[in-house]
């Protein structure tokens, strides 16, 4: 419920800590979604979420490497300076569906990557420290690449026709 838009990122370490948290949260969520799809026998989607998680894992490792000398901070959830109620790159778990298609998963990813882009974009446009600004620009660029990547994937995975969720034996059947 609380948003801290004016709460400026004030060190490189803090910036890296936020960048790393974005990746970690995304990894956790994509794996959570992967688990869900496996449990519900939607193996195509499970693989897609594992791939997305793998992508974020690589990204997280890069950030960790960069933080080698600067160090990451140990922040509590409430100490992060997210512009919104959530970490910006989180896939919206409540949009998941047991019969979802790659198009749905990619829409979730697109939204998450766009929010991550906007998070760094906001820092670029508001931060005063030139070094933080420079690094934020780099992260913004990476997120822009992710957005492009997801958009390309969406070209190959168009929106399914209506009725994609139809089920002859739906779980909500009351008998």
């Amino acid at each position: 419920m609380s948003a801290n838009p004016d709460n400026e990122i004030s060190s490189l370490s803090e910036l890296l800590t936020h960048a790393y948290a974005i990746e970690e949260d995304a990894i956790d969520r994509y794996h959570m979604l992967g688990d869900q799809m496996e449990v519900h026998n939607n193996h195509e989607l499970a693989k897609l979420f594992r791939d997305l998680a793998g992508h974020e894992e690589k990204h997280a490792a890069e950030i960790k490497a960069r933080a080698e000398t600067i160090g990451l901070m140990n922040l509590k959830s409430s100490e992060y300076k997210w512009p919104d109620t959530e970490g910006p790159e989180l896939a919206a778990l409540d949009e998941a569906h047991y019969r979802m298609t790659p198009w749905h998963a990619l829409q979730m990813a697109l939204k998450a990557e766009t929010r991550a882009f906007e998070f760094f974009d906001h820092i670029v446009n508001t931060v005063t420290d030139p070094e933080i600004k420079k690094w934020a620009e780099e992260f913004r660029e990476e997120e822009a690449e992710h957005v492009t990547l997801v958009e390309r994937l969406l070209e190959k995975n168009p929106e399914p026709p209506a009725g994609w969720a139809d089920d002859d034996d739906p779980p909500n059947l009351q008998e």
Partner: protein
Amino acid sequence: MNVSAPLKASDFKSDLKPVWCPGCGDYHVLLSLTKALADLERKPEEVAVISGIGCSSRIPAYLKCYGFHGVHGRSLPLGTGLKVARPDMTVIVAGGDGDGFSIGGNHFLHACRRNIDLTYIVMDNRVYGMTKGQPSPTTEPDWDSALSPGGTGLNPFHPLVIALASGANFVARAFSGDIRGTTKLISDAVNHPGFSFIQILSPCVTFRPEQKEWKSAIHAPPVEATDDPARAARRIMTDDGFNVGVLYRGDRRPYKIGDGVEHKTVADLEQEFQI
């Protein structure tokens, strides 16, 4: 590098894959709970999560800490017993509205009254999800379904006010989708002495898909939490059911474990049997 020292939220997640429906609010609660435990800097062996029966009551299986998946409606007696026996542990009791308010209603009343230092989380989706959609004590009277044609005609009750009237010492409402807010509320509840109760509105996407709209209905309470239970009760009975945050933070005397227990010698005991 100093990332190794404290545990992360993911360190509190077990390897079991949840069987909840994709989209279920309980996934959010699982995330919030693991984040809260990380924020609280607890170790898995210092925490026990106790539940009853129902979808949400599966949560101990998905956590890496002590857990007990108990019988229907009896999570609070289990949690109470554990806390009394092991006051050093952080005890969190979790479950749903069916488990906690229907079969478990009396334990709820009396756990609030005893005011033992534990945290009770109810994931309230206003329906029995696991058993395919029966109305619960918080279901709207006109909720029409195959199992309650035309609605039950029964009024839902006010769990938060019942908690206040029974003696709970911390009362909050949360929304599962608000992970940051819920994480903070769980941390605050655990840190507050005595019995803490959090009603987490957690949508059931399968039987109550309309609850997805809760996301846009929730808002912060118009005023700060009060320490006056009477005022808190009045506010909750007149609010719209969607203000999310701490609603009461009391200083009611928690049950002091060891109260009334005298440590006696054999000679003391012998004296009691003298005529």
